């Protein structure tokens, strides 16, 4: 498979504190890469670097390179372009303060889609892909903030899909959800595999095992190990990975 994202010697500082140390890895097209690790291991910073949300924090410093389809996202692309192609689903599903329809049409509209017909089509497809269509199709004009937690998270996924990204980043997308909602979100991820490259940061090791093709283990800002999910969970090469998986720390 082709490498979609190639990260080389990536280091990130926040106001002088190094949160990511000299990291190199690649993400293949159409795979789900699970990223696990204890708190403060740099997982979220890693994700936010991939779609340049770190730019918003003026105290952050980044070195090394991140390439998307061979293009350096920090030097050869502008932030909006990167974020359109590499979309993010956040830990807390927060719909924008507008209707369900407008939440999903928000991205396409910003990228120049004006026709009502086309927008309706995009909204329907995105909601279907996120397994939400059946539940909300009769109340598209009601506020997105009135949905339940699981529905809100799927709405956020649908809104992400609507901009037709190439890569979707998930930052602990199920941390606030019940098991049934979690299962639905995971179903959506598996369904999306054929079309998107996905990176899933999670605290839930089992979730990484359930949906990840490959899994990376981060510790204190370092990449300890990356490998096939089956191999990493059953026969970790590094002692620290084994310790984490067996619950000795973190």
């Amino acid at each position: 498979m082709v490498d979609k994202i190639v990260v080389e010697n990536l280091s990130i500082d926040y106001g002088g504190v190094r949160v990511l140390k000299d990291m190199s890895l690649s993400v293949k097209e159409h795979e789900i890469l699970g990223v696990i690790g204890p708190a403060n291991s740099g997982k979220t910073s890693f994700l936010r670097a991939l779609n340049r949300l770190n730019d918003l924090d003026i105290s952050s410093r980044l070195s090394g390179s991140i390439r998307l389809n061979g293009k350096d996202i920090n030097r050869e692309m502008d932030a909006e372009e990167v974020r359109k192609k590499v979309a993010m689903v956040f830990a807390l599903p927060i719909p924008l303060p507008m209707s369900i329809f407008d939440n999903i049409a928000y991205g396409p509209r910003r990228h120049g889609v004006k026709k009502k017909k086309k927008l309706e089509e995009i909204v329907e497809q995105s909601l279907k892909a996120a397994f939400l269509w059946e539940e909300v199709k009769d109340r598209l004009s009601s506020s997105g903030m009135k949905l339940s937690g699981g529905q809100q998270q799927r709405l956020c996924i649908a809104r992400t899909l609507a901009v037709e990204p190439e890569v979707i980043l998930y930052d602990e997308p199920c941390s606030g959800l019940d098991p049934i909602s979690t299962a639905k979100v995971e179903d959506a991820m598996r369904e999306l595999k054929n079309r998107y490259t996905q990176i899933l940061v999670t605290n839930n090791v089992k979730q990484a095992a359930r949906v990840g093709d490959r899994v990376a283990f981060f510790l204190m800002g370092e990449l300890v190990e990356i490998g096939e999910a089956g191999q990493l969970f059953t026969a970790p090469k590094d002692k620290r990975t084994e310790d984490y998986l067996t619950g000795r720390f973190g």
Partner: protein
Amino acid sequence: MRRFKEFLIEKIILLNGFACILFVILIFFFLAKDGLTLFKTVSPWHFLFGTLWNPLAEPPQVGILPLFLGSLIVTLGATVISVPLGMACAIFIGEIAPRWIRELLKAGVELLAAIPSIVIGFIGMTMLGPIVKNLFHLPTGLTALTGSLALAFMAIPTIVSIMEDAISSVPRSYKEGSLALGATHWQTIHRVIIPAASSGIVAAVMLGIGRVIGETMAVMMLTGNASVLPKTILEPVRTMTATIAAEMGETVRGSEHYFALFALGLVLFVITFFINLAADAALHQKQK
């Protein structure tokens, strides 16, 4: 003992709450008592729609239409000037400016709020008046526009600080959510942050208008105080507040003139009341 203390504190707070309402009622009552006395001798119609304000004439002419329109035109002018400026400033401070500029601007805006209105009036008289006069080739620089400009300066700190609060308190996740969908910074401000902060923005505008309509000193110094029906914003006008301030000191107590000024105060009170009511309604509308 502890329960008694709790009880006491609760009642004191309750009492304070009622005291506030009582004050409003008392103020209204006093205003109404003297204000309505006017209508024993002057018909409300002549008071509200009369076009001549000559309280020293015999019999006094107390038509407040020119004063009402004077207040209206000055307030509208100040709103039109201050709202876009204040909004732009609030957005810049809240969303765009780097931290050090932000701190500098906030301090500057707070300083602007601390300038006494008489100082603004003074500066307006010596600087703004001549500029307006020369710019539009007018016989005098003391016009509604001059007043509006000075009042805009006074409203801007109110508008900026409340709007900035509203904008800063928009959850960061809205902004990130929008940016993560590939929206530009401006699109995010325009489509997400401003709508999300809209109730605070409406409140800011209303409070700004409230500040403007009640302002007295600067308008008295800058608007020329001629009680004509204003046709353009480039003419001298007389506002309701300036009229009360200018004439109360010299009026004979218990005269028709005296009661007319109270009635004018009553009109101002009613207007302010409705502005606040409108602001409240707007806020509740948004919360639904």
